[in-house]
Every structure is written in structure tokens, then in C-alpha cells.
């Protein structure tokens, strides 16, 4: 039996609010990047918010998440505080990783968030291990492993899909298929661009879902997680989405047209969900405005927290290269 999402007012408001929080958080990140307060690479999730928000709704607190380097949305949707996230982006020791990881390497023990990973495909074997470790210790937890369409080109994807299925491990493989691996278009990289079909090669259920529709993603994720938790083994969920902005901040986007981007923008997950809610009387413009205002205030507080943060003393540079003990 597939769990259907009950679209009560509180729930739809929550979904919309989560997507808006992510979108606005990243807009602020762009400002701070332009002000050279955030440095290095900054990979924006703009357009893909429905994927993380939908999938995280299906997870419980004891479940685990393995993320990508485009993981601000994954982190916020999972419940990591904007304050420690923003402090991390600003390289402050109050950041979730004390400023050592930055935008691409968000880790959070409390929410079982096992890292943004800047090696495409590098998180998949690790996710298999998290699921294996949980299973061997008798935890009934699911590991949601996020990766992009580019990761599907990597050997680590195929090795991990096979091992997870062979050992019947509780992994939800979530492919954020945004059609481009940096500038490499899906159909130029894949002999079989129907990514969900690949799951069959590993005797795994593969489901494709409209990744611009937060309710569809949540429904699909809930259904998959329910089956995984019931002992059905891993599942593969392909969320078809689109990245509205450049791959990173250094991308002239020569590989796609403005028209293509504009066409997708009209299908944007926030605009679409919001107008559907308004049309159906589930939310009104005043409430949307309140959500946006609250999100902006939360972001302002996070920026204040980050700006007021301190720099880790250089004397601590080598701390945690090797650990004194396994954290309890």
C-alpha cells in the first residue's frame, strides 16, 4: 500500500516553507559570495528544492543522509540549522564543521548527515556502508543517498547499486537528474538516458518522478521508504529536475540556451506549488508573504550569527587530522 500524502493546510504550508527557506538562503549566499564573504565553489540548488524537501519528509530522525556537493538544500531540508550552515559558509569555527568543510562538505552528527561529497559518486559506497552498519546493529534505519545524473556515469554507482541490492541493504538511492553533469548533457553521456531503468539491472525497483513536483516526490519517497523499512531492500528514485542557475559561480553556461532555462523556470517547483495552493484555496497571498518574511528573518539571524562568529586559531589547523577517540 502506497502512503499518500495528506495535503492538509499545515503540511502544504510546511512544504512550501521549506522550499522557500532553501531558495532564500541560497539567494543570500549569492550576495555573500559576490561580497567575497563566501569563497571557493558555490553550487546552487535553485530549481531542485522539491527533491530534497519531498524526500526528507519521508525520513525519520533515526534515518541517515548522504549528500552531494550541491547540498545546501539537502542540509536545510534535513533540519540542519541555518546558523551553523551559514557560519560554515563563512569559514567560522561556529560552523557545523568548524569552517573546515565549507559549502561542499556539510556534516552534521545530530541529524545523521554523513556529508556533502565533492567527488561525484564518492558518497554512494559510503551510503552502502552506513546502511550496512545500521542493519548489522539492528537499527531499522534507512539511508537516503543523494547524487546527480553525473554520478550514474561513475563505476562507484554501479558497484554500490549492486552491493546494496545483493546484500539487501536499506538504501534509498535518490538521483537528482538535472539533465547536466556540469556541462555534459545527459543524452551525450548515457547510452541509456532513462536512468530509472538502470535499477532493473540490479534487481531493484526504479521509479521516475517529476522532481519539480514536491508532492509527487514526497509520495514516491514515502512509498519507497515504506518498502525499504519493511525489509524490501534498496530502491532507486530518479527525480527529474532542473538547475536554474549555473553549475557553480564560474560557469558561462555555453552548453544550454536561455530559452531552455526559461522554459524550465516556468515549471519551477516553488512557483508551481504556490500557485496551485493559492488556486485551490489552501493558502493565500498574505500567508505566502508571511512565510517569506519569516524565512528572510531567519536568514538574517543566521548571517548575523555567522558574521559574529570567530576564526579557529591557526594553531588548531592539524586538529582532527587524526582523532584521539571515536566521538560518542
Amino acid at each position: 500500500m502506497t502512503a499518500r500524502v495528506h495535503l492538509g493546510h499545515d503540511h502544504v504550508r510546511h512544504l512550501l516553507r521549506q522550499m522557500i527557506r532553501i531558495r532564500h538562503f541560497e539567494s543570500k549566499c549569492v550576495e555573500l559570495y559576490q561580497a567575497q564573504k563566501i569563497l571557493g565553489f558555490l553550487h546552487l540548488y535553485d530549481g531542485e528544492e522539491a527533491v530534497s524537501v519531498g524526500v526528507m519528509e519521508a525520513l525519520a530522525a533515526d534515518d541517515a543522509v548522504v549528500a552531494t556537493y550541491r547540498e545546501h538544500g539537502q542540509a536545510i531540508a534535513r533540519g540542519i540549522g541555518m546558523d551553523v550552515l551559514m557560519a560554515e559558509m563563512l569559514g567560522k569555527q561556529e560552523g557545523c564543521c568548524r569552517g573546515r568543510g565549507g559549502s561542499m562538505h556539510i556534516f552534521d552528527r545530530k541529524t545523521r548527515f554523513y556529508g556533502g561529497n565533492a567527488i561525484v559518486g564518492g558518497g554512494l559506497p559510503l551510503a552502502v556502508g552506513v546502511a550496512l552498519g545500521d542493519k548489522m546493529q539492528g537499527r531499522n534505519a534507512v539511508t537516503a543517498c543523494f547524487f546527480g545524473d553525473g554520478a550514474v556515469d561513475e563505476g562507484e554507482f554501479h558497484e554500490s547499486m549492486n552491493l546494496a541490492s545483493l546484500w539487501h541493504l536499506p538504501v534509498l538511492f535518490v538521483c537528482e537528474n538535472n539533465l547536466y553533469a556540469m556541462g555534459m548533457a545527459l543524452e551525450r553521456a548515457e547510452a541509456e538516458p532513462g536512468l530509472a531503468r538502470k535499477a532493473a539491472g540490479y534487481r531493484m525497483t526504479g521509479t521516475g518522478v517529476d522532481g519539480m513536483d514536491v508532492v509527487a516526490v514526497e509520495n514516491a519517497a514515502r512509498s519507497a521508504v515504506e518498502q525499504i523499512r519493511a525489509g524490501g531492500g534498496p530502491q532507486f528514485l530518479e527525480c527529474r529536475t532542473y538547475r536554474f542557475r549555473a553549475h557553480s559561480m564560474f560557469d558561462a553556461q555555453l552548453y544550454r540556451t536561455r530559452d531552455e532555462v526559461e522554459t524550465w523556470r516556468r515549471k519551477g517547483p516553488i512557483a508551481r506549488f504556490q500557485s496551485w495552493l493559492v488556486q485551490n484555496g489552501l493558502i493565500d497571498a498574505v500567508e505566502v508573504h508571511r512565510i517569506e518574511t519569516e524565512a528572510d528573518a531567519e536568514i538574517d539571524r543566521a548571517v548575523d550569527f555567522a558574521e559574529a562568529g570567530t576564526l579557529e586559531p591557526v594553531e588548531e589547523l592539524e586538529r582532527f587530522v587524526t582523532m584521539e577517540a571515536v566521538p560518542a
Partner: protein
Amino acid sequence: MNAVVTITYREACRQALRDALLSDPRTFLMGEDIGRYGGCYAVTKGLLDEFGDERVRDTPLSESAFVGAGIGAAMVGMRPIVEIMTVNFSLLALDQIVNNAATIPHMSGGQFAVPLVIRIATGGGRRVAAQHSHSLEGWYAHIPGLRILAPAVLDDARYMLAAALKDPNPVLIFEHVMLYNNEGELDPAVTEVDIHRAKVRRAGTDVSVIAYGNGLIKALAAAEALAADGISAEIIDLRVLRPLDTATLLASVAKTRRCVIVDEGWKSGSLAAEIGMRIAEEGFFDLDAPLRRICGREVPIPYAPHLEDAALPQPADIIAAARGLVRPA
């Protein structure tokens, strides 16, 4: 006091694994053909029958996936012991070892440790040609975040694993393939190994020979021949390739004032280069003679026995180098 036991290096490794499985329910073994086949080098033979397939896991030929799985399992509370059949195969898991295991503790700001042990067979001499014979442990010794061990003697083969499992960091244990059949007695006084320190295996006064793995066995043989020639060589078992126990090396060199470094890896960019440079930086004024290195020749290890022997450090090379330092022409 335990009785004296005669044992092979292989059996010492196996007993160490068995101890680990018996003493800690969080440990499990994972690797290619470690179960039903009994291990490529027969180290894990019998463990599947004793501990079952949950704790002795045969894996598909997916080095990246099962090493990464070890990392993930370690991060959530297990103590995996992963076997990689040969060091050349470990290159297929290099991403997981270098980009994940070695970085995550630091990159996460200390939120996560990776208490993982990886056992890897290494080295040449078995006539199996280039892709099964290399000594790449020096590459791994380049990576901050990893501890690299090379047990050469039976006591270390028997007790290093327990110490590695207590370490909260990823530990790579390199077992030289030529050592598995070595047989001898375990020292009943030894029940644990200090995996922070090198060990003087034979005291001497004229020249220090720093070696590890199978190189140590060759260095000990060379020391015998040198002694017959009136030269007293001090043989140091490096055994911890990272982090280097520089203090023990410098103390020996301060005493003997001469040093030969034996390393089966290629000379260019080698671990021997690192050791030599540390001695040059910190012990230069203790030296009475130039540093010497006996390394693998810079070729892919060839199949033909006479060529392979010529490519690897041999006792005669160590003897000639030591003699040349003590009695320059």
C-alpha cells in the same frame, strides 16, 4: 607465561583476525574471496565456518564499493576489517581511501571518526609480474589522516591488528606476500605492539639499516654477513610507515653515524626519500657519511625470475652499501 609456539606469519595474521572477531561484536571481515575460498593467501581460512557469513563477508569484485562500505559502517559504530587482495587492486579503491577515509574526520570538524582497518597484500618476489607485485605503501604514507603499518615479524603479524582496531583512525596494514610462509616462534613476552614506534631488531654500532616488510628480513640477513666481516649493523624495523617515528631513527643514526634505507618501492618520490630527508634535516651533523638508499629498480616488476630479482632490493645490495659507508674505498 605462555608456552613457546611455532607459527607461520599467515597463521599469526589469522589468529589476530580470529581474536578480533571473538573479542568485539562490532568487528567483521569483508573482502574478495575471504570466505568460501579461504582468502587469496589463505589468511582467513576457516573463519567463515566459525563466524558465519554476516561477519565474514565475501564481496563482489568491487573494491571501491566494499572499501567505501567499510568507511560508512565504521562511521556508524562498526569496526570493519577490510581485505584488499593486492596493493595494485587497492588503486580501484583509492577514491574512498584518500578522498573519504582520510579526509572525513578533519573535514567534518571532528564530528566523525573512521575507525576502519584495511589489510593489503603488497610486494614482489612471487613471479607474478607487474600488476600483482608493486610496493605502493609509500604512496599511502603520503596521506595525512591514515596510519600505515607494515608487520615484518611474527609478533607484529600476531598483535598489530588489535592495536590497529583500538585506533580511532583508518589504519592500513601492508602484509608483504613473501612473509606469509615465514615460520618461527612467537615471543611469549609479547602480547601487544606499540603502533607508534619503530623497533630496533638488532643492535649495532657501525651503520644503521632502516627497513620494513620483507626488506627487514633481507636487512637482517645482510647484518649476519656484515658481522662476519667485522661490521656491526643496527637493524631498525620501521614498521610504522605513517606517522614516521623519526626519533628512533635519529637516535640510531646519532649512534652509528651512517645510514642505509631499504625500500622495495621505486626510489623516485619514495618513502626512503622522505626518511633520508628527515635525517638530513634533523640529523645532518651526526652523519659521517652520505645517506644511501636501496630501493626497487624503476621498472614495472617483470615476470622472469632473474629480472624480478634484479628489480628488487637484495641482501647483497644492502651489504655492499653498508660496507661502502663503513669502509670507503
